[in-house]
């Protein structure tokens, strides 16, 4: 990313620009040859956060795009190193803030791999349930924001209405609507009780009809179709080469889903389909995400049924990592010592571990390295959104400026995660 976008940079782009690369260029256009540098963002409503795009325009055609990330950099990785293992959980909420529980689980899985901790079966089921609800939440935001960017404001309200129902569920379960912090090393903080299970059941019963409504409004809508079809085509090879993951990769026809390829949290026990696109344009990515929401609802239903049969604890009983029960802390000296030990000096063994999960945006991975102390030696976050932004320049070249909005929307990144 070049820093200062002044005169010399622009001249270089003029020379690099070969006429064959732009399709259907109108040579009678009086503006032909004179390039315009336009800054899209960081406060542009369509950039979904603080992303600055330095767009070079030839009339309406995009010559080059220079994504400038880092406006929301809060030093999350460094925070992890200074805060310690457990205290980083609230920070993971704030990475991709539309799916906080998914990030919690991704981080917890990496720590559990590092510590060699086996999660109780019921906790695994609860986690799958939470992850799939988070996926629906995140995809609903995608549909809503892409809708509002492309002029379909109705969709924004319809999808946010469904998301509101989900937030009510999460609120009843965790006590917060966002930034839940309800996952712990070795399980989840509290069990999904009957009241919450009934709420989820009700949501899952109503959700397909609501999704059908959104489907009816969008999928065969001519404006939606024309503004998404054939735009931003990524070939299979390009998608793999740019290390795209998630719906963006699957939209290009690559059958790669970490839930299938490297199952975690017992995903191999669930019956679901992985939707894959055929062309690789914005429309395919939209269809993939719509289908994924239906599949996520299917998995969540299976997880709810599993909760009725899989009984037991939702958190391991291991005094090295988990706080002892509160009533015992009052009566037993040993438990009080464990309480102090876990809060002040919870250690994970020496080593390094990476765990990637299939988040709504793609592979969300946490690489944690430990030197055996209570603070991580290194914590790296593999944000899928960063890779998705990389693809923007390639996709936008030669397209109309208005297509940029569809492209940004269909790449579906959250800057909290990209800049971290």
């Amino acid at each position, binding site marked *: 990313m070049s820093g200062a976008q002044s005169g010399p940079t622009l001249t270089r782009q003029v020379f690099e620009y070969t006429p064959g690369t732009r399709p259907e260029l109108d040579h009678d256009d009086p503006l032909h040859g004179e390039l315009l540098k336009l800054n899209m963002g960081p406060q542009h409503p369509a950039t979904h956060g603080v992303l600055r795009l330095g767009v070079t325009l030839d009339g309406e055609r995009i010559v080059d795009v220079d994504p400038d990330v880092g406006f929301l950099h809060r030093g999350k990785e460094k925070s992890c190193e200074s805060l310690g293992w457990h205290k980083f959980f609230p920070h993971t909420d704030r990475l991709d803030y539309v799916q906080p529980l998914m990030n919690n689980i991704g981080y917890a899985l990496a720590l559990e791999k590092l510590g060699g901790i086996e999660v109780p079966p019921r906790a695994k089921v609860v986690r799958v349930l939470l992850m799939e609800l988070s996926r629906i939440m995140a995809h609903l935001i995608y549909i809503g924001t892409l809708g509002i960017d492309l002029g379909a404001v109705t969709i924004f309200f319809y999808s946010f209405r469904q998301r509101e129902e989900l937030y009510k569920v999460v609120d009843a379960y*965790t006590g917060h609507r966002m*930034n839940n912090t309800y996952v712990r090393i070795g399980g989840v*903080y509290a*069990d999904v009780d009957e009241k919450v299970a009934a709420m989820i059941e009700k949501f899952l019963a109503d959700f397909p009809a609501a999704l059908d409504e959104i489907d009816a409004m969008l999928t065969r809508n001519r404006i939606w179709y024309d503004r998404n079809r054939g735009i931003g085509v990524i070939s299979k090879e390009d998608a793999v080469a740019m290390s795209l993951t998630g719906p963006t990769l699957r939209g290009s026809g690559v*059958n790669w889903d970490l839930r299938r390829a490297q199952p975690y949290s017992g995903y191999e026990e669930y019956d679901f389909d992985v939707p894959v696109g055929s062309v690789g344009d914005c429309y395919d990515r939209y269809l993939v995400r719509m289908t994924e929401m239906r599949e996520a609802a299917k998995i969540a239903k299976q997880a709810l049924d599993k909760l009725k049969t899989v009984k037991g604890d939702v958190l391991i009983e291991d005094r090295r990592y988990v*706080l002892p*029960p509160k009533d*015992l802390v009052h009566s037993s000296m040993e438990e009080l010592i464990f309480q102090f030990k876990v809060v002040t000096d919870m250690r994970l063994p020496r080593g390094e571990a990476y765990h990637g999960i299939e988040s709504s945006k793609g592979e969300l991975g946490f690489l944690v390295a430990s030197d055996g102390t209570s603070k991580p030696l290194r914590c790296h976050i593999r944000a899928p959104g960063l890779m998705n932004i990389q693809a923007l320049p390639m996709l936008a070249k030669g397209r109309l400026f208005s297509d940029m909005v569809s492209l940004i929307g269909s790449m579906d990144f959250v800057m909290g995660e990209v800049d971290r």
Partner: protein
Amino acid sequence: MVIVQRKELTLAERLYLPEIFRGLSITFRKFFEKPITRQYPEEPLPTDEVTRGQPRLVVKDDGNIACVSCGMCEIACPAYAITIDGGETDRQIEREPKRFEIDMLRCILCGFCEEACPKDAIFMSNELELADYTRRGLIYDMEKLKRPKSALQPRIDYVYKINKRWRRTQA
């Protein structure tokens, strides 16, 4: 693996006008549905014992706070919102906080202090609203944080309940 179906638009769909009426039929149906909006300040958000609001200090029935200023919540706080200065007291517990401040502007309501407290002295209340004219006014001292135990009892019971369910008690 399932390949998503994409079909070209039919003539009727391309004509645009029939589609407009189909879309409007969906949106007009919404006129007759029950509104889902809430008139917020007049109708406050429902809260229960699960709600993790702002942390509050428990005042026991004898009028003293349960805190012994061990500093566990201060250590457990990921946002560095809690400040405690401990001191001696004539009471049997020997130590009590001389200064206990929570910077509500820093607090992220994660509930780690509640989990870490070994004396049941700090719990998440269901108080959520937070506004003031100055920053200093939002740094809550002990007087602002004190709540009688009866007010926090539902939350205390809930935390004990999930603790019970959550871990097998050892002999």
